[in-house]
């Protein structure tokens, strides 16, 4: 099946349509058509990002082969990126290459967690990213193509993904999952500023996320009441709670502007919100354990941490996002903890940033 010469070599086809079918046959796509990566397009991407195509962007899991900027550009073209999207893609690749991200495990785990990217700073509006209505859905070319570029790059750099990927169910975000924070709708500092970057800097953060649990509260305005009402959702994020009550892995909460507005109007800091979320989740887990044990079912501690469960508020990462109408929150359980509450965030470089 993989009987081609080298990644530096060019493949010749009669026609773009023939190239398209060949890419499907080689299992180089995610099942959807790709933009065939012609040399001119690939070269332009690297140029605009101010990088040599031969620079090393990271190392492939398992084989440890060096991934060149050119290879990232090839997959970015395939995904449908424009040149101005490429610096975000490169920074995202840098982020997922961090050992803490544990890309190898994410690629193959039966959990089906996948790469979740959050972009902040001036680049987001400049390239047409969406942080508003249907933030987790389709519509923005930048959101769709950047997330997809990273997914294609990983699959093609690892190779044999059809055999290696073991996600029992997986989720649709494995096609693409890249959002911008709705910074204008937030009563707090933007996410990247909260984590030590400058307001005028642009960044991308990478997380290993499971399908979000959506919670809502259209009735209450008091932050404590709102967060308490999310209790069953917070328990649901701890899906490993059956038999495990140990270390944490964390949570990303996407809070809609309506809810963020209630938090802001009540004068709650982001820290206070996160403390309350952690506290309610712990309470829910504790109550669940008590219910199980009083029914005679032993809840034994295992060495596998509980997905989504947090130790402290520092394991919760929070952004404002989504449409102006609707009091919803998306709780994204994480499978790999970002230790000490430190998110993996990379500065986005390049000529037009």
């Amino acid at each position, binding site marked *: 099946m993989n009987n081609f010469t080298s990644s530096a070599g060019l*493949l010749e086809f009669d026609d773009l349509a023939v190239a398209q079918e060949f890419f499907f046959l080689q299992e180089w796509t995610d099942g959807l058509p790709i933009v065939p990566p012609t040399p001119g397009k690939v070269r332009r991407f690297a140029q605009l990002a101010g990088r040599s195509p031969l620079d090393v962007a990271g190392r492939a899991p398992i*084989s440890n082969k060096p991934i060149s900027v050119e*290879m990232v550009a090839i997959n970015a073209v395939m995904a449908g990126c424009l040149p101005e999207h490429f610096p975000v893609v490169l920074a995202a690749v840098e982020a997922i290459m961090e050992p803490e991200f544990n890309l190898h495990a994410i690629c193959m*785990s039966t959990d089906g967690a996948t790469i979740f990217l959050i972009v902040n700073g001036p680049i987001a509006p400049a390239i047409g990213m969406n942080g508003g209505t249907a933030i987790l859905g389709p519509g923005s070319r930048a959101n769709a193509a950047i997330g997809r570029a990273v997914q294609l790059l990983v699959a*093609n*750099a690892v190779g044999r993904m059809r055999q290696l990927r073991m996600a029992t169910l997986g989720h649709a975000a494995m096609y693409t999952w890249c959002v911008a924070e709705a910074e204008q709708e937030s009563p707090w500092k933007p996410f990247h500023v909260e984590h030590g970057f400058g307001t005028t800097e642009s960044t991308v953060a990478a997380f290993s996320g499971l399908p979000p649990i959506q919670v809502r509260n259209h009735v209450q305005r008091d932050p404590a009441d709102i967060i308490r009402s999310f209790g069953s959702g917070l328990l649901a994020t701890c899906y490993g709670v059956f038999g495990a009550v140990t270390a944490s892995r964390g949570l990303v909460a996407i809070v809609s502007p309506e809810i963020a507005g209630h938090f802001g109007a009540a004068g709650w800091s982001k820290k206070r919100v996160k403390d309350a979320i952690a506290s309610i989740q712990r309470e829910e887990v504790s109550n669940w354990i008590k219910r199980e044990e009083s029914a005679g079912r032993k809840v034994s501690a295992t060495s*596998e941490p509980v997905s989504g469960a947090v130790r402290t508020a520092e394991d919760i990462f929070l952004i404002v996002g989504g449409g102006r109408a609707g009091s919803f929150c998306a709780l994204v359980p994480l499978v790999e903890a970002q230790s000490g509450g430190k998110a993996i965030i990379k500065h986005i470089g390049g000529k037009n940033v």
Partner: protein
Amino acid sequence: MSDKAISGEAAGLNPVNVHCPAFEFTGEAIRLANRPDSLEGLTLGLLVNRKRNADALLEEVGSMLKRDYGVNSVVSLTKASSSRLAQRELFEELFNDCDVMISGVGDCGSSASFSICDALELERRGMPAAALVTEALGSNAQATAEVRGAPEFVFATVPHPIASLLPSEVRAIAEAVTPKIAWILLGKPGRSKGNPPGSGFPEPAKSLGPT
């Protein structure tokens, strides 16, 4: 319609060059370790990955290798996480204190892939290693070995799942898979009479499950 109209260009064919988005087939090749003639008197290392029943299953296999194949002693080490490579100190300890090793049990995507990588890390250093994964993860284990540069690496499989097994069931599975593990460590069938001495690895099956 003229001949020209139905030629390549008019038919919409435009020859094009495109880049290949992937690497060539394999990573850097790993040369598998030389095998001992027998397991008699050797020290067996177990690299346990914390998955439920992994410790019980590997320890049962260890006891059976002592009982049936003359292994002298068993050293059991547990790695920090099933979804990461074992810590460097554990590899050092295994390499320094043991003669052969078994890593396992990979019963999910990441744990299976890492059980293979752990075993290959010892093979790369010259120690015969067996990896144990459940049957459901066979394709992942095989692809991991190939991408890692060891397409000839043989691993053993047990029925899936193991997490819900009772101790008596764990013991039965261990009985069935121990001969296969001995075969992998020796590179040939074990002590059972009637099997001619062989060299190299069993062909053609890449994974050896209970028969």
